[in-house]
């Protein structure tokens, strides 16, 4: 095992954390690798935002920065979020408007039933979402109510499980794959904005320091926002490595 000095710093922003850490170590940015452990501000429903936490690892004298070996091919942004092994059929297209109404009713019904059986009080409303890249129309389901943090869970794991089960139930009824997008009090859209902002910030850092920045582990749907936000960025590129659920996105300087 190689020994490296590491330092964890907490500060309101990544930039401040980095500056603070470097001054403590008495080093310049190119002597360390930066890993964001906590992007902060992830308080539920915008409340209780935390500070960011970064880990600085001092690079060995003749060593490359702490590179984890990529174990598999990086996901590309053209890939849809994995939704399982179900046949992927068009949810909304090719169906009559009566069938569409039925689909909305079924979705609301399944989600409401699940919530009731989980002892959660909430209002449910479903409508058709935007057509995705494959031309499928997902069903957006919005859940509103108090104290629904338990339904989101850590890194939205519970919400993703809920969304998957609800999609399976509706798909089984209709005998074709229907993707439900389930959101709680706008959590997913807020998280998307947050992740995209963070991606831009980290891209600036990557360019400024010329170092790769590894983000905290995220589920596939969240990693996708980072890839999407930076796919056309002139100065950086992104790649994922590691195994679920610890898979992380790294932002690297473009080498061409």
């Amino acid at each position, binding site marked *: 095992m190689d020994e490296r000095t590491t330092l964890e710093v907490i500060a309101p922003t990544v930039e401040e954390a980095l500056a603070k850490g470097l001054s403590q170590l008495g080093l310049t940015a190119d002597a360390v690798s930066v890993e964001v452990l906590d992007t902060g501000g992830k308080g539920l429903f915008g409340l209780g935002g935390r500070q960011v936490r970064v880990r600085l690892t001092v690079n060995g004298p003749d060593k490359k920065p702490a590179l984890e070996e990529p174990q598999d091919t990086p996901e590309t942004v053209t890939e849809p979020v994995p939704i399982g092994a179900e046949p992927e059929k068009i949810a909304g297209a090719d169906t009559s408007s009566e069938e569409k109404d039925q689909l909305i009713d079924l979705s609301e019904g399944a989600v409401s039933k699940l919530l009731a059986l*989980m002892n959660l009080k909430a209002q449910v409303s479903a409508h058709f979402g935007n057509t995705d890249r494959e031309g499928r129309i997902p069903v957006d389901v919005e859940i509103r109510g108090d104290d629904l943090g*338990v339904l989101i*869970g850590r890194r939205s794991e519970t919400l993703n499980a*809920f969304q998957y*089960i609800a999609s399976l139930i509706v798909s089984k009824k209709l005998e074709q794959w229907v993707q439900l997008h389930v959101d709680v009090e706008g959590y997913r859209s807020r998280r998307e904005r947050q992740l995209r902002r963070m991606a831009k910030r980290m891209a600036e850092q990557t360019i400024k320091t010329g170092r790769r920045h590894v983000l905290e582990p995220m589920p596939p749907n969240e990693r996708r926002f980072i890839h999407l936000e930076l796919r056309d960025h002139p100065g950086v590129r992104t790649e994922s490595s590691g195994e679920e659920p610890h898979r992380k996105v790294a932002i690297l300087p473009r080498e061409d």
Partner: protein
Amino acid sequence: MKELIEYITRSLVDAPDQVDVRELKTGNRIRLELRVAKDDMGRVIGKSGRVANSIRSLLRVAAEREGKQASLEVIEPQ
């Protein structure tokens, strides 16, 4: 909790009448045993256990709401 498991699995399988859920309580802990038709095993377990694990996530929330701990076991048919 039993009802939650019954609703989900009956909605996913081809033979809902063969879904059997048993609740075994030990103090604060509840063990749920799920039995389904042999041909439906894959539907309730899923690729790499994804379906069963998702069901467990929802079960955990339901159990926590009652201050309990619950586990779900999918029992292989004989």
